């Protein structure tokens, strides 16, 4: 299990380094960087490459935002396999709803209980 944790650390860290390079060398804004990573995750799953990465690195592959693109594609492909054309459209959020619903929910709760701490550098 220790080895798995170390692998998660290294793989997750490396994905973040790719993001940092996109921002520093590619001069991209965070929004552009994250969008590119999400698209990359979606494409990797198209080639059946992201699931092995998850098997290998565990949270090192599921925590970075790339996994969001992966699970969207995964849902779409799984449904397409079953239902054909229509499945591509309907399967999308089958696997990934938790990230978005959690973000919306905790965003709302956050807005209810917190106030911008604001000015500390």
């Amino acid at each position, binding site marked *: 299990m220790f080895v798995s*944790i170390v692998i*998660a*650390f290294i793989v*997750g*860290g490396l*994905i*973040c*380094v790719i*993001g*940092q*390079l996109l*921002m*520093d*060398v590619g001069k991209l804004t965070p*929004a552009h*960087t*994250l969008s590119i*990573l*999400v*698209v990359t*995750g*979606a*494409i990797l*799953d*198209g080639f059946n490459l992201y699931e092995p990465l*998850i098997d290998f690195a*565990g*949270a*090192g592959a599921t*925590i*970075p*935002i790339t*996994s*969001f*693109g992966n699970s*969207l*594609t995964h849902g779409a*492909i799984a449904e*397409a396999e079953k239902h054909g*054309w229509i499945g*591509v*459209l309907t399967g*999308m959020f089958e696997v990934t709803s*938790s*990230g*978005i*619903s*959690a*973000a*919306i929910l*905790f*965003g*709302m*709760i*956050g*807005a209810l*209980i917190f106030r911008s*701490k*604001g000015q*500390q550098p």
Partner: protein
Amino acid sequence: MDPKQYDNLQQSISPKPSILKNCLKAFLVGGIFCTVGQLITYIYISYFNFTEKTAGNPTVATMIFIAMLLTGFGLYKKIGQFAGAGSAVPVTGFGNAVISAAIEHKTEGFVLGVGGNIFKLAGSVIVFGVVSAFVVALVKLILVTMGVANW
């Protein structure tokens, strides 16, 4: 002075970001976020009825909960300034983008302020995720139908 000349002058004086240092920081912090995620996954597998496959969803939700606390107490922006992509790329960064927008626009009311702006920053991630997933799945479906590829 023409713009090109000025740009050279300006760049010779402006400090350059240390890319190596930034990458190291991103690696370290990003790695720590993923390690925490891995530990949470183990907790869900050990103490609840989740398999490796299904533990992903509750783990992501828990990470976003952590992001809410860090954002609410004003810590996430400090981590972000230090770590750059190390805190932006993990799903907690997605959570921070959503939650910070929600807190920020609270003064404009819950419907138009929070509701209308909650995806101001994170929306593009969802949009591009969905569009690219659609295209990838569609291409794959076509290729499989043509018999060029397998599922």
